[in-house]
């Protein structure tokens, strides 16, 4: 059970980032958690809620996008989703495929009130 530590890291990173934009209010933190990351999304949500309540940061929310395991086939060059531990390429059937993704533990984006995106790459929603 290290989700409390992970939740604290999420909150700390997000708050540090939000502080760089004075006058804004942090409302939602979006994270990506891969199914091979060894992090339980439910425990992460629960830990996050506890931290937010403790620090009086309501109504700050956490949105977790879970990411499946994907393998890449070096022959077909296609990436495919792995179900039931079956690593064979659906294109050519080879079992010699490479790990592509599924161990994500990433801070994807922040939703902030009164934030005016100016930087390149920032988008409004």
């Amino acid at each position, binding site marked *: *059970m*290290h989700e409390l530590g992970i939740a604290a*890291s999420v909150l700390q990173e997000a708050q540090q980032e939000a502080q760089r934009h004075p006058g804004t209010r942090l409302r939602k933190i979006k994270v990506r958690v891969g199914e091979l990351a*060894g992090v339980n999304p439910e425990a992460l949500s629960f830990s996050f809620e506890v931290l937010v309540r403790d620090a009086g940061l309501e109504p700050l929310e956490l949105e977790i996008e879970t990411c499946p395991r994907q393998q890449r086939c070096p022959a077909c060059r296609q990436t495919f989703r792995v179900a039931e531990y079956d690593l064979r390429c659906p294109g050519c059937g080879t079992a010699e*495929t490479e790990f592509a993704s599924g161990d994500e533990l990433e801070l994807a*984006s*922040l939703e*902030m009130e009164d934030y005016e995106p100016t930087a390149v790459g920032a988008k409004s929603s």
Partner: protein
Amino acid sequence: MSQLPLERKVLSENDRIAAELRRRFADQGVLCLNLISSPGSGKTTLLERTLEAFPPSTRVAVLTGDIQTENDAARLRRFGFPVRQITTGGTCHLDARMIERALADWRSVSCDLLFIENVGNLVCPASYDLGEAAKVVVLSVTEGEDKPLKYPAIFLKSKLLVLSKIDLLPYVPFDMAAAEHNARVIHPEIDVVKLSCLTGAGLEQWRAWIEERCHELQSLRGAVVT
């Protein structure tokens, strides 16, 4: 409401410190191995057998992590090499800052091989990079052969799987082939060594594997220098 894209790792602070440690280990030619397993799989015993076979001149050191007690450090110090205990006081894993701190006030020690024995736990240590050259996961034959499927993260991130306590195979219903198969489903390239610290079977392969990693590190350093 506006959105600010970040696209960074949650544990970026840990990863920053780990990257610094990795750079330092590479500069100093230190091979650092991070041993991870469930409690009781035999990490400390494996280290005992490993240390006792080294000549006294070997520049090897151990950092051993536990939630409480100095017991493991006391066991490992008997072989005369520098050993330091990190007691986490409740935290279920070691993180890069704990390693940085332990090394900072251990300046008198220089080594070519540094073992980190993580807290006994197959889940949390997988998330924390310690700057090691390789993670080594230990699975004993008294556990289930489906553990790689149940705890995929650590098997995916480890370079070597040590299957320990093989002297017990006649007494337990452990399917060795299934265990290896399950580990390779998660991580097809994982190396596997089967050993018993009681009989000594397989310890030669374990030492050879470490030796190979040392050579790898030296040839990498040589390539950088020339």
